[in-house]
């Protein structure tokens, strides 16, 4: 198990290095310098600014200096908000995004696993078709459409819930969490249904039933552990999706999270912010993929030896 974790950690390092390098050079070749919009800047000020941000040195030197800063955990200053560092901006935005993603994941898991297991108990009956049709609808209504529709119905027509903000009014976290989680609930429902269908026909389930264990225990204790492996494997990619999905959801609901900072940085061409946020989010996603793999290997020992061999 430790060897498995170790080998996965080693694999994560080149991935992160690729992310950092590609992002760094992409940002450097971007047309238009970060200060080209400010026309009033005199050449001396411009030179001073460039010196401050190390832009006057050769690109390779900048790159190595940036890597050095990264190792110390310093993502550099923001181009657009003088006096604020990228670290501060991320520290301000990330807790909000993490909270949103967490609630969305909870929504997705509760609804998804619930619906999937219920559907798998009586395949090809109404109990199967209704939740699975709902899941199909969930997949086909993307968050950029679901969010506005929810605002229109629950925020404006029914006037039950606030439609924007984060933590300012009671209940203003409900709609963003549902909007972000809905698609994942749908995928998880399909995955857990398929997983449960496969597991529930296996011999050890028959043995459990033959021992006289009550059916709910057979499903919850014996069935779920095997049946949910595909769901656990999906959690890593789902988390990556939740983070990037939060770009849209935070924009719709005006949530002051990292996603909104990122989109604003994209519009403002705040290159250090984009670079820092990309590196930060990528590392996070790599870590979560790793955790999801480890969790999966823990739940399903057969994967450990297989993964050790061919990757």
């Amino acid at each position: 198990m430790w060897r498995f974790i170790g080998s996965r950690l080693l694999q994560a390092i080149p991935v992160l290095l690729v992310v950092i390098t590609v992002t760094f050079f992409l940002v450097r070749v971007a047309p238009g310098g970060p200060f080209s919009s400010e026309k009033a800047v005199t050449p001396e000020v411009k030179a001073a600014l460039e010196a401050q941000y190390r832009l006057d040195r050769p690109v390779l030197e900048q790159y190595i200096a940036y890597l050095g800063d990264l190792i110390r955990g310093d993502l550099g200053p923001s181009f657009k908000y003088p006096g604020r560092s990228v670290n501060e901006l991320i520290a301000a935005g990330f807790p909000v995004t993490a909270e949103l993603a967490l609630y969305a994941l909870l929504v997705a898991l509760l609804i998804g696993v619930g619906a999937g297991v219920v559907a798998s108990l009586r395949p090809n009956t109404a109990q199967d078709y209704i939740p699975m049709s709902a899941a199909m609808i969930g997949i086909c209504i993307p968050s950029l459409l679901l969010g506005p529709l929810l605002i229109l119905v629950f925020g404006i027509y029914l006037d039950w819930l606030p439609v924007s903000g984060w933590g300012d009014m009671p209940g203003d976290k409900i709609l963003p969490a549902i909007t972000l989680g809905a698609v994942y609930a749908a995928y998880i429902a399909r995955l857990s249904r398929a997983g449960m269908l496969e597991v529930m026909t296996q011999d050890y389930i028959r043995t459990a039933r033959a021992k006289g264990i009550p059916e709910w225990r057979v499903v919850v204790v014996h069935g779920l552990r095997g049946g949910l492996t595909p769901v656990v494997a999906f959690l890593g990619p789902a988390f990556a999706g939740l983070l990037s999905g939060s770009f849209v959801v935070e924009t719709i609901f005006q949530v002051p999270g990292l996603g909104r900072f990122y989109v604003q940085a994209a519009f403002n061409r705040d290159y250090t912010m984009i670079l820092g946020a990309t590196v930060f989010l990528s590392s996070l996603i790599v870590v979560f993929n790793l955790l999801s793999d480890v969790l999966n290997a823990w739940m399903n020992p057969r994967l450990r030896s297989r993964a050790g061999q061919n990757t």
Partner: protein
Amino acid sequence: MSTTSINALVDAEQGSSLWRDAWLRLSRNRPALAGFAVLTLFVLVAILTPWVAPYDYAQQNLELGATPPSADHWLGTDIFGRDLLTQIMYGGRISLAVGFIATAVALLIGVSWGAIAGYMGGRIDAVMMRLVDILYALPFMIFIVLLMVVFGRNMLLLFLAIGAVEWLTMARIMRAQVQSLRQQEFVEAAVSLGLSPLAIIWRHVIPNALGPIIVYTTLTVPSVMLLEAFLSFLGLGVQPPETSWGLLISFGTETMEEYPWLLFFPGLVLAITLFALNFLGDGLRDALDVRGAKD
């Protein structure tokens, strides 16, 4: 044996072929057929839009302003008095084009990459698939946003960027197929006949691996279209005066309180398209008996 009975024999043999079987199964799958019909209709409309659109794309009518659906404007008009149906038709051209072209890019890269890796095996395979593993771990959505920022909001780039992201799974599927195929006797026979690896891949391996590829292609189109909608919604994809369904939804959201139809109809069209593609993809998967293509 007479000619007719030979023909009958040939027919009978074809009757049990994989493709004929698959077609039979697919034609019994109502949702998949409905999906196919809807898609065909949408694609036809998209192609014919310049001739069948009820109004001129750029024609504004500021005095008219936003009006709800009426006999003159079936889906209403936007705040500039432009016909919404016309806007949706032109937007569909771009949304569908992104969907199909980016998928084609992904298909081309993924199939060649996977086929070469799987067929060559050994060190070449190891290096090629390691690269796929590394790329797999990258947060691509973030990267596409980055690309759109760095290189400006260029449509061609949008196609390429999305296509370049979506080929990874295709390559893995193709490689697995090729690996199992190259053990088989007809490939060995082709090798001993002296065919070049490229000819073998093209003539013998790819046709036999088509099933999973077709299924996965069908399922890639909706995710590509979603990516485009997502980017356009954020203002980083398609730019006015061009339009797409994602952009129309984005504008509809801004005025949804006063003019909900501007959100509702573009959203409905996008959702219907996604439904159709997903139903068709699921139907094809069942018909071609492909396991684990997506979930």
